[in-house]
């Protein structure tokens, strides 16, 4: 293991529980590289996750780490951040964790524009529970609970989070790992709510049922179907069907929640002088 990386890992807990070819390790390493680039202190950084294969990542990282309940990572993270605005708070979540049971907390954290970076490991499936479809599984794809194909339509999660009010929104893949690392770094730097959707690979459950049975197959699939956001802008919706649009969708400066709260308290300092 790379020594630089090693400094951020709880190496005594490796190898991790993820299956051979699972993309989760690729994203986890990308996060660590981004943090290393920024020189953040491990003591001042908190990782919070929900439940799922991906949500196991913080356990391997030598930071303050909090593995919560399914879908709720962002609410715990909000408590941490509001109580200690000086800490860096990063949420690791899966596509199901973030967008199914946790969808409400995601849009509300984005709406508040609270300074938390959320990295969603999107493997298009519920991995931990054995391959049921998630809100990010493609329509018509197969899953253990979609034996006749998935009737649900798919969230464009980046678009949703943007509409909800985030400051930074991007999508990368485990194939395009350097751009992914850069997106994560930009997300971490951003004051406000940032969201990076990392397309990752679950060969065991998503892949096998959908004719992409290995990690290599899934990385090839990512490579072959990725379309940069600039190019996608010029394409018709039909051309874009089945493609993965990657790149930065939004990168703006907006008032951050904990700062607005402080500002309002200052403005109304007189009102609260009493008692």
């Amino acid at each position, binding site marked *: 293991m790379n020594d*630089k*990386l090693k400094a951020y890992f709880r190496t005594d807990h490796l190898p*991790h529980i*993820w299956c051979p*070819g699972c993309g989760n*390790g*690729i994203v986890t*390493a990308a996060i660590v590289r981004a943090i290393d680039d920024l020189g953040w202190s491990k003591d001042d950084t908190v990782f919070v996750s929900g439940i799922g294969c991906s949500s196991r990542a913080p356990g391997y990282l030598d930071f303050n780490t909090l593995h919560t309940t399914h879908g709720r990572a962002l609410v715990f993270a909000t408590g941490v951040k509001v109580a200690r605005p000086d800490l860096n708070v990063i949420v690791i979540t899966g596509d199901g964790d973030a967008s199914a049971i946790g969808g409400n907390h995601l849009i509300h954290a984005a709406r508040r524009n609270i300074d938390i970076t959320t990295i969603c490991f999107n493997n298009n499936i519920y991995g931990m529970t054995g391959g049921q479809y998630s809100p990010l599984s493609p329509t018509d794809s197969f899953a253990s609970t979609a034996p006749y194909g998935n009737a649900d339509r798919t969230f464009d999660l980046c678009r949703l989070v943007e509409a909800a009010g985030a400051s930074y929104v991007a999508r990368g893949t485990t194939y395009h*790992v350097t751009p992914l690392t850069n997106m994560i770094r930009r997300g971490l730097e951003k004051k406000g709510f940032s969201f990076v959707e990392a397309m990752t690979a679950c060969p065991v459950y998503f892949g096998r049922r959908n004719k992409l049975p290995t990690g290599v197959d899934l990385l090839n699939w990512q490579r072959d179907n990725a379309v940069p956001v600039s190019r996608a802008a010029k394409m018709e919706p039909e051309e874009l069907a089945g493609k993965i649009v990657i790149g930065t969708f939004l990168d703006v400066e907006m008032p951050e929640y904990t700062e607005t709260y402080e500002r309002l308290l200052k403005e109304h300092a007189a009102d609260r002088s009493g008692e």
Partner: protein
Amino acid sequence: MSSKELSAETPVRIDRSLCKACGICIAFCPKQVLEADEGAIAVVAHPEECIRCRMCELRCPDFAVTVRGDRGG
């Protein structure tokens, strides 16, 4: 780290205790430096071809690859 595959000059190192034999580093090495052993564990077959692009390291899901060079360990 239990085992170094090749001598000190080897630019790429595979940690066999971490490798889960997924084949990703092998499939995407632009120079075919890496190969699978009989257990599908990656081995550095052609170190001399390596251009230190680090793609193997960056894409290894098990933190099992280290490419030495300017940036790495």
